[in-house]
């Protein structure tokens, strides 16, 4: 099996791996690099659990081939906390009791992060739209929506 080199930045650190051609980014991250924060919920592009941020855009790592990410800047939920301090989104998910089984949580946070990076003061509709590609089977979505709105409120208070 032909191996191909891939190099990208993952949560700020350089990664270089030889992978089999045709390997999805999800498998490369989880099985080669050891970042298991993106989850494989469907491998179809229908659940959002594998969501990552590539060059500032929300992507599904299960439908992205790793070798198309050469030179990319990739962010995952594993890189959200800095120096042991939780990211405001993570804090808000805890405070809002927005996790149950937790399997959708990393993907939800990626979707929410992209939203808040671009729209610091989102409306509820903005949040609903931003999370619309991510399935949660436990919470009924409301606590997750609240967690994102809570993060935005906390951010705007800190900025003020």
């Amino acid at each position, binding site marked *: 099996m032909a191996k191909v080199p891939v190099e990208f930045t993952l949560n700020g650190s350089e990664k270089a791996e030889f992978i089999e051609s045709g390997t999805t980014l999800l498998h490369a991250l989880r099985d080669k690099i050891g970042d298991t924060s993106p989850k494989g919920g469907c491998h*179809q592009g*229908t*659940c959002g659990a594998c969501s990552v941020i590539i060059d500032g855009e929300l992507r599904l790592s299960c439908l992205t081939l790793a070798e198309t990410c050469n030179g990319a800047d990739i962010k995952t939920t594993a890189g959200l906390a800095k120096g042991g301090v939780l990211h405001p989104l993570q804090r808000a998910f805890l405070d809002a*009791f927005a996790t*149950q089984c937790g399997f959708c949580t990393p993907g939800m946070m990626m979707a929410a992060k992209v939203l808040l990076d671009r729209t610091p003061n989102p409306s509820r509709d903005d949040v609903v739209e931003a999370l619309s590609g991510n399935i949660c089977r*436990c919470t*009924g*979505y409301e606590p997750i*929506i609240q967690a994102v709105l809570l993060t935005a409120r906390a951010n705007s208070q800190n900025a003020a």
Partner: protein
Amino acid sequence: MAIRRGRGVAAINYPTGMNLGGDPTQALVHSTPTGNFMVTLSSVDLGQGMKQIMAQICAETIGVPTDRVIIDTADTDTGPHCMGTFASRGTHRAGNAVIQAAKEARQVMLEVAAEELEVNASDLETDGQGNIQVKGAPQKSISIFDVALSAHFKRGRSISGRGMFLIPRSYPEKETGAMKPSTCYAHACTVAEVEVDDETGEVRVLKVKNVFEIGRALNPKMVEQQLVGGSWMGISHALYETTEPYYPNRDHGGTDFNQYLMPGPGDLAQTEIIVLERPSADGPFGAKGPGEMCANPQIPALANAVFDAVGVRIDALPITPERVLRALKAQAAG
């Protein structure tokens, strides 16, 4: 086009634990040298928060803060038997086992403390903050940290306990069906409000007001998680979900989250949750199992609300726009 409104009600009960009993769960509790408590189980957390609840139950029973408890569960090399997480049994069965184990451990802990304080163990109480004190004389106290050190290194005592909870199995009488299915039941009543589009059959859920009686809310925020998510699933079952949309025909089963329909974040009903607590006689601190029943009353409440709105009965689940529209057309045709 007309958007027509209606509301419906439903009331239900739901048994806690495996039907007819016979479903044991065990727990072990022991103290570490510095007075932290390890609960060893083989119970499974599905996301409902069983680990956290077992920690709170152990903490309350021992008399320490919850963050002094560690849950080691679902490793069959270490955890004693649990029948499993299903049938709303986790909190009730495992919780009772943890209480029994924790009580036994607490007794040893108090005995060691009594020796250190030179009083009778029966005269001691915990303050819930990590200390043991003489009843009526709280200045005479010792920390659980010190008690555990003493037990381990001085007195050679194991601060530990074993717990087992089993409701004996009931066997239904063949001809009459006389049996004991369960020892306690949770209750609910839901009022749902809908809008029905009488040209397309689309049903929009405006509000659900759910009243749940769950014995005891051991952790109210976690109860809320279950009840809010359950209410969503009930709505989902009522209006969306099936693996065989043309049952009993086997064709066109959904194979992904696009085809298997569930309400999205833009479909959420305004949801109100009210909790009543009538403690059960045999539940841990009176708790019953709320996890399953919270998704049931919305289904008939919505069916009844659809009838209230447009005057057609949909007696088959799910209540799809197609079923509503077919019924409306039949109604119009007389």
